[in-house]
């Protein structure tokens, strides 16, 4: 799997973009598009992310930040320019293996970056494991990808579902909350986060009164909120994201529960949607590997440059995309741009110590960040970092044979 491929040093597509190739090839002209043109070829980066549908925003943020880092480096990583091949994965797992095949088999990219949706990621992981293609995941948190399905060529610059959920157990318990109810959608990410919270919380002595699940992606919470009110726990752990998160936080407050039973969860509950959540979210405690008010030099520079280039505030997804580019840069620098020397690329990435806007993190043996998880409190439209909930937290990577 780590066998060195031939260096693609002198190869270059004469068609500028993947887009043009896709169109022509699809129309039936199967152009043998490989020509040797003097100068050194570009490193081919496949971006497989959602650009349509519910997660389009996240796909854009990741792409923007990835390109921002490359631009900061003068457009070159390890001395070589980059060429992008872009596929919209639509967050549709049914097309996942096919889409990633297009990048790997047809476009022959050197590295694939993606994606947001966990189900799609697992399809990509399947292909990456079979073909040995280098894969960097800038978001999707499916525990399996760096757990039982871990592989030398699969890296992640974001988080496992286990990570941001786990410290919340400690936070709640130390506040003296002895009983909890959990609520999330009935799907893999929700279940993994609840299990992680439960693990941390019950180990300390906390008691889970009930685990509540809502069919995905339904947003009618009233029945379960009523149940929470009747169970009267000391605290509620919840994971929702996007539109569901906004509605849940608002419904929770409107049901009068907010001031009586503290609500918390992984940061996705409040990230990127605070403007929509308004007063209902004020004071909520969440845990995540990024937040507002991290006063480091690199974070300030990152935020400034991102805002200048894209006219919007960078979020946690942007940070993960930025770090995906940092990780790739590290691998390429170690081999002076010769990405064909795969063993050494992977070795460099394994030993990565990334100075990230989120804080410095290192790569675990299972290829997932060992990182600080912050405790944040909602103030206005900010998730203000008020402390570190867990220093250098590593995913247990259960089932991974590389650890």
């Amino acid at each position, binding site marked *: 799997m780590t066998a060195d491929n031939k260096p693609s040093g002198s190869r270059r597509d004469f068609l500028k973009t993947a887009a043009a190739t896709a169109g022509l090839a699809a129309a039936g002209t199967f152009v043998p598009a490989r020509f040797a043109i003097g100068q050194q070829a570009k490193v081919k980066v496949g971006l497989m992310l959602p650009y349509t549908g519910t997660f389009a925003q996240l796909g854009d943020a990741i792409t923007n930040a990835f390109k921002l880092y490359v631009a900061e480096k003068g457009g070159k990583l390890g001395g070589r320019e980059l060429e992008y091949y872009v596929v919209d994965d639509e967050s549709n797992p049914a097309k*996942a293996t096919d889409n990633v095949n297009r990048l790997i088999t*047809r476009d022959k990219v050197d590295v694939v970056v993606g994606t947001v949706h966990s189900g799609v990621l697992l399809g990509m992981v399947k292909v990456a494991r079979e073909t040995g293609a280098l894969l960097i995941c800038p978001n999707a948190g*499916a525990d399996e990808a760096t757990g039982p399905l871990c592989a030398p060529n699969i890296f992640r610059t974001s988080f496992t579902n286990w990570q941001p959920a786990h410290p919340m157990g400690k936070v709640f318990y130390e506040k003296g909350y002895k009983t909890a109810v959990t609520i999330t959608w009935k799907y893999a990410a929700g279940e993994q986060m609840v299990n992680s919270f439960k693990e941390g919380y019950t180990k300390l002595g906390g008691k889970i009164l009930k685990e509540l699940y809502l069919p995905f992606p339904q947003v009618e919470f009233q029945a379960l909120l009523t149940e929470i009110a009747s169970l009267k726990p000391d605290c509620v752990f919840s994971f929702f994201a996007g539109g569901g998160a906004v509605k849940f936080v608002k419904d929770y407050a409107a049901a009068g529960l907010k001031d009586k039973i503290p609500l918390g969860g992984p940061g996705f509950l409040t990230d990127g949607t605070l403007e929509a959540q308004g007063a209902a979210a004020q004071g909520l405690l969440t845990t995540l590997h990024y937040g507002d008010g991290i006063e480091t030099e690199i974070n300030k520079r990152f935020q400034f440059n991102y805002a200048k280039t894209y006219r919007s505030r960078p979020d946690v997804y942007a940070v993960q995309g930025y770090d995906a580019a940092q990780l790739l840069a590290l691998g390429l620098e170690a081999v002076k741009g010769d990405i064909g020397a795969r063993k050494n690329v992977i070795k460099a990435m394994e030993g990565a110590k990334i100075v990230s806007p989120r804080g410095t993190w290192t790569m675990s043996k299972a290829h997932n960040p060992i990182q600080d998880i912050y405790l944040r409190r909602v103030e206005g439209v900010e998730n203000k970092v008020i402390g570190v909930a867990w220093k250098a937290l590593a995913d247990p990577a259960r089932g991974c044979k590389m650890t």
Partner: protein
Amino acid sequence: MPASRALTIALFVGLVALALFPLFGDKYYIQLLTKIMIMAIFAMSLDLLVGYTGLVSLGHAAFFGLAGYVLAMMAPQDAAASLWITLPAALGGAALAALIIGFLVLRTSGIYFIMVTLAFAQMLFFFIHDSKYFGGSDGAYVYFRPTAALTGVQLFDLENFNHFYYVVLALMAGVYVLLQVILRSPFGAVIVGIRTNEHRMRSLGYPTFRYKLVCFVIGGTVAGLAGYFNAAQFGFVNPELLSWHQSGIALMMVLLGGMGTLFGPVLGAFAMILLEQLFQGLTEHWLLVMGGFIIAVVLFLPHGLYGLAAQLGRKREAEND
């Protein structure tokens, strides 16, 4: 030249072209064509219901996805499952599901039928999505493609993408012939009769419900065949395979190619998947283009590409005369 002969020639040329393709084609395009042919089988199975029996099903993907799941559940993690065990099981599973669902949904007709098939597919979707046993929303892997070895003899190796391609090509041709044979049999005549006038067929003494049910089961089973090979090709099944969007795409293939022709859905599968790739390359908002395209086809191409070709052919004939 009579239309039927033109069609035969076109079919033959197409088949030869497909058979020769792996000799020249790049690996990716061989795999792409394999996928397209699998979708063509799926679309043909739907055409049997929509184009011939007049049953517009918006839940056909349920059988497609279910068969894939049967394979995923039967395949061990560390070895290849036998094709000769898993394929009949997958087809049987799809057929059984089609029998049960068909028994319920065929009590309705028209708009009701559309909505009810949609709702039942949705029920199966949640059944799999919410169940840990099936891998939930994360889906499940088929680690190795099924092996075709039987008593030590191995005719073909599905792990080889060229072999896989030819197997699927043979199946596509086989399904085409099978469905043609069925439709030209007395059974087929009754089916088409039901579509034109169910009351009349019933008053002639045909138990139309049973005929429709048989048709529904055949359609579901063939969809299962496509779903099985889809799962085998990609090695990954997900609840999304059963979703109504998947059914919608298949309906679009049927219409785009030309419904009620069997040949049309095959054409539609090719056109649809290639167009999707083309549109994706044009703009980030390619779904807008796709939506517009679908609307345009409905408005201006009601008989699909096949109808268009036939029309052009007739025109030409008229000019030649």
